[in-house]
């Protein structure tokens, strides 16, 4: 391609044709216009007359100019002019090409554009026969120069990674650089990193470097924090541009289990600010369902943050045996627990039977020995369903007979009578300290402080199962904390009191950490590496660079400290990790993150990805030539006097026709827009409606049918419907209509998903659709006819309950008339309605069952009711039914079915409720 500033040409040598224009000028100028032949009787008088001027008549200069312009436009158009041609810089040489990709999560947002640009780059390199190589900094692999065409095939396989090219990876990338001199194109994600400088230096050593950087905004969403009863969110942006509002959406599952946007928080960036904050106050139930927070309309892992347990505040019910010593707070069995749990958990107060219906996560029983049988039963059931019962020992437990002879269901071990006291004033021994935790213990990794001592404890009865139930013990091997799984839940017993009476454990930080590990309290927002010492976390869901959640199929577990401390990489992918009791999320954006735009030295040219688009100009130029030629035809005709007004008008009309048609097509409005009074019209009266199928004949009959039915209703009942309307499922509101008549045609288009949503909403809110396959005489309903198959296709996405053929006692048989058949134009008994509930019972003394309350949402049949109902303008039947009187009788029954149907829709199960009339009369004392 040859470039002339903004315009390039694909075949520039064709422009040489422009040199021929002057020659053409001379030729065209010399050729006079073609003579006109005229019939003229006076020619006899002309014979022998000579023209004064013997030189040939010349074409007018403006006509010449017009033709020259047309020819020039054709030549230029064929030369393939392109506005803003792809110009990959003036410094292109024959050196190999190295494409460096940042490949981080920040690139994901504009990855497609980057790949398009890369494809163009490689295509250009291919045309120039330059070898190329690709180096992804986020996943450095040895780059080897190869044919650009081969590389182009690999472009689709390049994906960004949900981590950043940090120093270690950059070092690996430096090693992977190919030998020799080359030219580099760096697709940067725009974020400044320390590792950039050495890389840039190395690249500049080898040859010219060009940087591509997209100006598209890059967002990074910090992990959500729970502060002051609300979820606090902090959003960063890369470049401090003007004020902007960005929405952050909390995604999760709605109560039905479907993915939904649960909440949206608009965050506002002030002008020049790179940081925006906001808080989202949500009820605890809603908060617990949140799967992820993401920035709207982005596809980058940095703009997604996964909440973990820190948002999932646990509900803990604290119940103490004795609360009689008011005022002595430090001696209260629950004081230390309250202090430890209050920051990270929601505490419930009240009696055991009062808090159980609230289904708390944890119930703490501090020195509660005996439970009433009702309490015990309820508590056991709750534990079975996954509750965690945390018990503390105390004088009452030690004195009681609970779990003495046989193991209590709500105690992890059997207890010896009395317990023991060591290190007191009256005993010989020293107070005991804690032994380091075993590797199997959930507390493994926690530091055991020296100052924690135990003076008294309840003792566990030696038992075969005891060893497996101990999760913490004293230095002398006596159990301090024991645990037992019970159903889906667990029972944990601290063999000491919850206050400082028996031990100093509640005074120490270890106590809080132990509660955390047991998931009694939630973790603090950011766990320290030390807190997670000794734990292993299994990835459950991992993020890809685009912010999508994938299943972590066989990724290995990650050690706790590494999970918190290590940088993200192939071994530690961002995502949600599951520990023993808790889950922890590792997000791409850490807390207190900051995004700094990359600063490139002056020597490096930086280009945006979205340059002005390449616009081929050949089409417009050739069109211009065509217009000029048409003008030339007109002008030539005018010159030779043969331009009749009709011809000119036809030509101009033809020229205007195409754009005109296009304009009409564009200006066409949605069909519903021309009916502003639609809603007020159809809501003024009860209005029957039919679904427009697109088949004019069927729609006409459906409308005439509903007109006939409306008339019948008007005359016979107190329902006085307005004129029926045809509804377009895509555009019209359905909520106004009590029922829809839907004739099924083979050729009708399936409604769009939005229309189906509307239909389902309509059905759920009490609407009725009468499906009519209109083929009962050839196929007695089912998939055996094209219309039947179409019906299955149409009704597939609808929320239709189980169906059954109309039972004899269905309310449809007696809402107005007593009917047993539902004929239309055809007589088929196959009419289906919502099935009765299986527990419907025959009412004593009544011929029908006690049926469901609802209006059946669908009635399906094939009797072509509209044809039977249809009347013309004068109210005469439109279609013949049957033969003679029997046919008229059938039409009458068809009308009665219509009346019954409308009555059923409007009055629901009113007639069904009449089974209760005797009972009501009886109750009224009649």
């Amino acid at each position, binding site marked *: 391609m040859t470039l002339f500033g903004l315009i390039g040409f694909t075949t520039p040598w064709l422009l040489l044709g422009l040199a021929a224009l002057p020659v053409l000028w001379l030729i065209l100028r010399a050729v006079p216009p073609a003579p006109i032949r005229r019939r003229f009787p*006076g020619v*006899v008088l002309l014979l022998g007359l000579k023209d004064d001027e013997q030189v040939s008549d010349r074409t007018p200069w403006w006509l010449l100019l017009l033709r020259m312009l047309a020819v020039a436009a054709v030549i230029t158009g064929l030369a393939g002019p392109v506005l803003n041609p792809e110009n990959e810089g003036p410094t292109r040489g024959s050196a190999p090409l190295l494409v460096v990709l940042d490949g981080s999560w920040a690139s994901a947002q504009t990855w497609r554009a980057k790949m398009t640009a890369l494809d163009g780059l490689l295509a250009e390199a291919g045309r120039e026969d330059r070898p190329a190589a690709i180096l992804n900094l986020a996943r450095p692999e040895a780059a080897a120069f190869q044919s650009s065409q081969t590389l182009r095939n690999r472009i689709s396989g390049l994906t960004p990674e949900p981590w950043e090219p940090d120093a270690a990876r950059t070092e690996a990338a430096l090693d992977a650089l190919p030998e020799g001199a080359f030219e580099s194109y760096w697709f940067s994600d725009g974020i400044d990193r320390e590792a950039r400088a050495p890389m840039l230096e190395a690249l500049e050593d080898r040859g010219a470097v060009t940087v591509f950087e997209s100006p598209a905004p890059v967002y990074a969403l910090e992990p959500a924090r729970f502060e002051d009863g609300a979820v606090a969110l902090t959003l960063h942006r890369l470049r401090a541009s003007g004020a902007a509002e960005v929405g952050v959406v909390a995604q999760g599952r709605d109560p039905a289990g479907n993915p939904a946007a649960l909440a949206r928080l608009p965050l506002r960036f002030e002008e020049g600010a790179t940081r925006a904050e906001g808080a989202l106050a949500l009820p605890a139930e809603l908060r617990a369902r949140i799967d992820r927070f993401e920035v709207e309309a982005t596809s980058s892992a940095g703009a997604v943050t996964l909440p973990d347990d820190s948002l999932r505040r646990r509900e803990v019910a604290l119940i103490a045996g004795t609360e009689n010593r008011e005022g002595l707070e430090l001696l209260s069995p629950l004081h230390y627990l309250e202090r430890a749990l209050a920051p990270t958990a929601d505490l419930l107060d009240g009696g055991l039977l009062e808090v159980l219906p609230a289904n708390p996560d944890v119930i703490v029983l501090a020195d509660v020995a005996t439970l009433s049988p009702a309490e015990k039963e309820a508590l056991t059931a709750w534990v079975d369903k996954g509750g965690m019962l945390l018990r503390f020992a105390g004088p009452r437990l030690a004195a009681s007979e609970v779990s003495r002879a046989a193991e209590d269901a709500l105690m992890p071990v059997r207890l010896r009578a009395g317990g023991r006291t060591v290190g007191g004033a009256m005993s010989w021994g020293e107070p005991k300290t804690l032994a380091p935790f075993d590797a199997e213990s959930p507390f493994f990794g926690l530091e055991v402080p020296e100052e924690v001592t135990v003076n008294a404890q309840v003792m566990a009865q030696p038992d075969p199962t005891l060893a497996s139930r101990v999760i913490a013990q004293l230095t002398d091997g006596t159990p301090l904390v024991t645990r037992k799984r019970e159903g889906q839940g667990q029972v944990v017993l601290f063999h000491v009191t919850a206050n400082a009476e028996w031990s100093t454990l509640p005074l120490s930080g270890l106590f809080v950490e132990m509660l955390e590990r047991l998931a009694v309290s939630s973790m603090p927002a950011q766990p320290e590496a030390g807190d997670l010492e000794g734990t292993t976390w299994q990835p459950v869901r991992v993020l890809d660079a685009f912010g999508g959640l994938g299943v972590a199929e066989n990724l290995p577990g990650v050690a706790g400290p590494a999970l918190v401390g290590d940088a993200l990489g192939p071994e530690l992918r961002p995502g949600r990790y599951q520990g023993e009791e808790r889950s922890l999320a590792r997000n791409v954006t850490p807390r207190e993150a900051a995004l700094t735009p990359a600063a490139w030295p002056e020597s490096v040219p930086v280009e945006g990805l979205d340059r002005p688009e390449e616009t081929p100009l050949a089409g417009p130029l050739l069109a211009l030539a065509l217009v000029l030629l048409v003008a030339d035809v007109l002008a030539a005709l005018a010159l030779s006097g043969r331009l009749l007004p009709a011809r000119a008008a036809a030509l101009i009309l033809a020229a205007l026709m195409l754009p005109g048609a296009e304009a009409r097509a564009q200006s066409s409005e949605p069909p519903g827009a021309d009916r502003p009074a639609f809603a007020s019209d159809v809501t003024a009266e009860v209005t029957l409606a039919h679904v427009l199928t697109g088949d004019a004949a069927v729609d006409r009959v459906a409308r005439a049918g509903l007109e006939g039915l409306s008339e019948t209703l008007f005359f016979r009942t107190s329902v006085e419907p307005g004129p029926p309307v045809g509804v377009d499922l895509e555009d019209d509101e359905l909520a106004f209509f009590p029922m829809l008549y839907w004739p099924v045609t083979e050729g009708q288009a399936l409604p769009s998903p939005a229309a189906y949503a509307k239909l389902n909403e309509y059905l759920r809110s009490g609407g009725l659709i009468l499906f009519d396959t209109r083929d009962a005489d050839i196929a007695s309903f089912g998939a055996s006819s094209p219309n039947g198959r179409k019906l299955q296709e149409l009704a597939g996405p609808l929320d239709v309950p189980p169906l059954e053929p109309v039972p004899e006692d269905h309310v449809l048989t007696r809402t107005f008339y007593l009917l047993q058949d539902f004929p239309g134009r055809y007589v088929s008994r196959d009419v289906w309605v919502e099935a009765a509930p299986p527990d419907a019972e025959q009412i004593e003394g009544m011929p029908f069952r006690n049926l469901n309350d609802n209006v059946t949402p669908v009635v399906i049949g094939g009797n072509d009711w509209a044809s039977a109902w249809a009347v013309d303008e004068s109210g005469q039947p439109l279609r013949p039914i049957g033969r003679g009187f029997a046919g008229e009788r059938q039409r009458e029954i068809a009308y009665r079915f219509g009346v019954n149907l409308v009555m059923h829709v409007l009055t629901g199960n009113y007639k069904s409720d009449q089974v209760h009339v005797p009972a009501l009369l009886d109750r009224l004392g009649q």
Partner: protein
Amino acid sequence: MTPELALRARAEGEAARLPPLLARAEQLAGTVLLGEHGRRRAGLGDDFWQYRPLMPGDNYRAIDWRRSARSDSQFVKDREWQIAQSVMLWVDRAASMRFASEPRLPEKADRARLLGLAVAILLSRAGERVGLTGFTLPPRRGAAQLLRLAEFFSDAEAEDYATPEARGMIPHARAIFVSDFLGDFDGIEAALAKAADRGVRGVLLQVLDPAEEAFPYRGRTIFQSVGGSMAHETLKATDLKARYLERLAERKDRLDYLARVTGWQYSCHHTSETAQSALLWLWRALDGGHG
């Protein structure tokens, strides 16, 4: 269909054109009031002239008994003396007449035909005998003659330009030549001379299209005669206009001169004017001959 039948069908089709022509001609003729043409003396004729007393020598059969019964003397009914004059028509039917410069204008041939027939009707009503020059249709009276005239006028000739037919002239009869007179001038001259030799006087009516008078043509043009036998190409039609008009005027002058020399009358009629004016002129010109 047998050839006879086909001929009959064609003849019917041709004849169907006649009534309109006749009707138009009748209508046109109806606009001229008769009444100046009688001899104003008694003689042989159909119309009543006067009653006069019986004179010696009168045939008794000539007595009008109805008049005589009202008085004592006998009266004879004189009829007006009527002499039937022979008028011979020549209407140019050549291709050059089939020309109309604009769709709204009639062809010259059409106008010539109409005028010829209309004047024939008038003459016929006035009791003259009307016929064609030459031997095709000698002068006769009556409606059938008009039909024959109309039929003859409706036929066209193929040649481009025609010369007036001057054979078979009845001495001292009247003649009407309707043409554009664009053909060979010698032929016209000869025909008029021949007619003048026989004592025939008459009128020359030149029918021209406005375009032939105005020559509104420009640019490179090839002019063709209507029959296609002649053509003239010019690169600049405007240049020819003056010279063409000059030639046309010269031809008109010669026609006028020729007419005056031979005792004829000449006039030029354009198809853009009403046919009535031309008819009136024709009628007066003929009548003047009697005067």
